[in-house]
């Protein structure tokens, strides 16, 4: 039987505010244990929460960004609720979250995969506070509690079960990751836990409309783990169903060491969180004026820029998608192509989408930390366009620039990489190649096109890559007549 995987994601994005969701303690990462926990975070008797306006503003920014700047998905009145459960790193014995009335309801994210373009709908996004950390090592049979993270503002972003493969789930997570950084509400640092995914996964016979029983997978702190966990989980569920078994609704944990998911707790063990509106906090009211201020301050959104790149600059959706995956990368592209000809724009777009992007991924950095400036890239592109260098040499120069060797022109001069277009000089080289390769010449004359490419390659090699490929082609053809 053919199976279809159905996936919905819950993403916790840590909002990049200076202070916590309901207290004035700092949110900076990596401080000594409990040095960034104030009376409110420790939940001393008598303390009270006060909602952080900057966190609310970031949630609104997100709501606008996933709804094409339209505020009809922002609840003008949302309610903080208490989620009650006991755990040592949850100081109040409840987490303040939003339950029945979240601040954002609805919106969507556009994704691109090998099967094309797709829209993933968002159910909601709500504000909540993070818990602290339990440290089970180094305490000789006891548990240490670090409350620095307690009270950190989070935006929990819940999608509809609209994804049908691990690839789509990853594309969605990446698009969301790019968006929260684009609108500057989250630093997206996955190692530090600023962007965490839980995946709800179920399977059903292909063609069925009904949803299967789902399992929630926790602890997915990288895109690779997200992909692996979904693939493992879907295979596990399919195997059970094919053997005539039934899926148990449960929460599962992904173990990256073993590359498997395992049960954390089944539904029957699930907590009754006894949600109720937090009487310490008034309903969160968003005025039209405030919405308008936030809307005005929003940067051009990735979707808008995507459309501009594809419409005005005639780029392929795939290239535009890469360029708009990061606001800094899109800015970089626009700086590098400011006032350039359409041909140069197209060439630069492709260069960034393929070459630059690969280098960034290789080094695991973003464009702001790349050693090649937009101006240097522009110079490189211009040297290709004006015939000073070939595309192949350009790659060598690019490598040199990434090693910090400076501007393309100085590298060209230093290394003597200027393209040889002088016909006389090239003819001498081609003559040499023809003389040294009688077999290939014979093959070519017998109609083997491959032999021609080999001869071009030999000639290029003889120029150490600097020969103008078009000129060499032309000369060879003429000489072999």
């Amino acid at each position, binding site marked *: 039987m053919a199976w279809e995987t159905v996936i919905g994601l819950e993403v916790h994005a840590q909002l990049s505010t200076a202070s916590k969701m309901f207290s004035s303690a700092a949110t900076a990462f990596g401080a000594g244990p409990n040095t960034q926990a104030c009376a409110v975070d420790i939940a001393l008797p008598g303390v009270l929460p006060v909602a952080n306006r900057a966190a609310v503003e970031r949630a609104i920014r997100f709501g606008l960004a996933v709804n094409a700047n339209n505020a009809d998905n922002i609840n003008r009145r949302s309610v903080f609720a208490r989620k009650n459960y*006991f755990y040592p790193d949850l100081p109040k014995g409840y987490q303040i979250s939003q339950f029945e009335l979240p601040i954002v309801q609805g919106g969507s994210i556009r994704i691109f995969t090998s099967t094309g373009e797709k829209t993933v709908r968002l159910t909601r996004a709500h504000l909540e506070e993070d818990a602290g950390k339990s440290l089970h090592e180094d305490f000789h049979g006891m548990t240490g509690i670090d409350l620095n993270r307690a009270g950190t503002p989070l935006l929990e972003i819940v999608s509809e079960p609209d994804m049908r493969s691990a690839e789509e789930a990853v594309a969605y997570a990446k698009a969301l990751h790019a968006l929260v950084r684009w609108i500057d509400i989250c630093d997206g640092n996955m190692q530090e836990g600023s962007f965490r995914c839980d995946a709800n996964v179920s399977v059903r016979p292909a063609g069925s409309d009904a949803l299967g029983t789902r399992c929630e997978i926790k602890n997915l702190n990288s895109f690779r783990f997200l992909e692996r966990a979904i693939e493992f989980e879907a295979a596990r569920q399919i195997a059970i169903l094919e053997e005539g078994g039934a899926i148990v609704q449960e929460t599962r944990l992904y173990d990256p060491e073993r590359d498997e998911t395992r049960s954390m707790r089944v539904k029957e063990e699930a907590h009754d969180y006894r949600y109720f509106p937090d*009487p310490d906090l008034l309903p969160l009211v968003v005025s039209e004026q405030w919405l308008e201020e936030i809307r005005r301050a929003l940067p051009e959104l990735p979707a808008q820029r995507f459309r501009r790149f594809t419409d005005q600059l005639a780029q392929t959706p795939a290239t535009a998608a890469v360029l708009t995956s990061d606001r800094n990368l899109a800015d970089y592209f626009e700086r590098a192509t400011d006032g350039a000809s359409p041909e140069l724009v197209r060439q630069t777009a492709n260069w960034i989408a393929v070459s630059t992007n690969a280098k960034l991924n290789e080094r695991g950095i973003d464009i702001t930390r790349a050693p090649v400036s937009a101006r240097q890239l522009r110079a490189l592109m211009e040297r290709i366009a004006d015939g000073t260098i070939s595309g192949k040499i350009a790659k060598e120069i690019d490598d040199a620039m990434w090693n910090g060797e400076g501007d393309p022109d100085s590298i060209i001069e230093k290394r003597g990489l200027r393209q040889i277009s002088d016909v006389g000089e090239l003819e001498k080289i081609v003559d040499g190649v023809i003389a040294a390769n009688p077999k290939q010449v014979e093959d070519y004359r017998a109609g083997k096109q491959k032999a021609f490419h080999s001869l071009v390659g030999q000639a290029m090699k003889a120029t150490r890559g600097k020969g103008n490929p078009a000129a060499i082609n032309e000369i060879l053809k003429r000489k072999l007549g």
Partner: protein
Amino acid sequence: MLNASLTELSGALGARKISSVELTQLFLARIGELNARLNAFITLDAEKSLEQARAADERLASGDAQPLTGIPVAHKDIFCTRGWLTSCGSKMLSNFVSPYDAHVIERFNDCGAVTLGKTNMDEFAMGSSSETSHYGPVKNPWNPAYVPGGSSGGSACAVAARMAPAATATDTGGSIRQPAALCGVTGLKPTYGLVSRYGMIAFASSLDQGGPMGKSAQDVALLLNVMAGFDARDSTSIERSPEDYTRELDAPIEGLRIGVPREHFGEGLAPEVARAVDAALEEFEKLGATRVEVSLPNSGLSVPAYYVIAPAEASSNLSRFDGVRYGYRAPEYGDLIDMYCKTRAQGFGAEVKRRILIGTYVLSHGYYDAYYLQAQRIRRLIARDFVDAFSRCDVLVGPTSPTVAFRLGEKAADPVRMYLNDIYTIPANLAGLPGMSIPCGFAGANGPAALPVGLHIVGNYFSEARMLNAAHRYQRATGWHLQMPGAA
């Protein structure tokens, strides 16, 4: 001096007739004499009090004094007080020395008042008799065999027995007004949001409100001037310009329309209480007020609604007392769950556990709509009753409590009978309205056997000045508030 009003004390301090140190020593001596018998205080720290008194004296000498500078004030042990044990009457916090001051404490400190001690109370303010305290019951100064009311029984007792010139208290369902009535003092629960709850250990957040207790409406007005005010640390605190609550005290009350809610004079009201309240209403009429009969048709639902909402909030508010970070932790336990269970089983008393269980139940999946949401609907109906009533009158007047003080232990085994003590006071908490209790006579035999009766005044939102005006005019005309317990 023990009987002097705050205005008189302030005058004496200002004229250097007495120093704050002397005044503090005087009251500490009075406490030393009576507290063993009445158990009104949990914590006394003469050194700390006198240090504040010395600072107040310097301030008085430098001419930088405010009305309450140098005056000793007793604080209910629910207010976090830096450097002081703040137990909330519970074993759970019997080792909790607060590292910070509640907003109310800051206010008193800022104006140079002296913290005289921390007063005893029902555990976590849950009770109407001050019998549930981990530190033993408070006694009624009019007759130590009787309860002082609760939960602010320690504060009421301290003021009534002249162990303190004034005290702070809190009121969730009547915890200022009922003990004020049973001890014969004046107590005011302000409009919800007028006094910051920051640092006031939460029982039921949407109902809790701090307020003053004193010997007279005038004293209470002076205390409210200090306590009231916006605090950004409490999201339910209301931002409005400060008022002087003494400004209307002496204004005539001719034409004041007094609403008498008929539901507060029905079954369960002790005849001797009804008689005293009737006499008070007549007194008001003599002062020029007019009497309007009004109805609060849903007030009968207030006790059941309250005993859903208050425990629901309490069950969550008290979750932080888990033995992890501060407070009591069971000395021996197995795993984490066992630590929680033993700590909370040993650290909380029976009444607190009862309310946590009720609250947990009413918030549980499948019961939430039937209990919590239904109670919230009733709450809105009750608030609407008051809106209707206040369209016809300026203040509501009735009995504070259905009976005078009862014997220690009399209702301890019957929670529902105990809960009915607050039948007249709870509606004001549910609606967020200000309410006060003033002495209006005595029930029982004359002389040492007599027990005070309290008159309940409920006003519209932020009408504290008007209520204090009515109470002050009544007190000027009658003098019940000047009576002092013989047992003390």
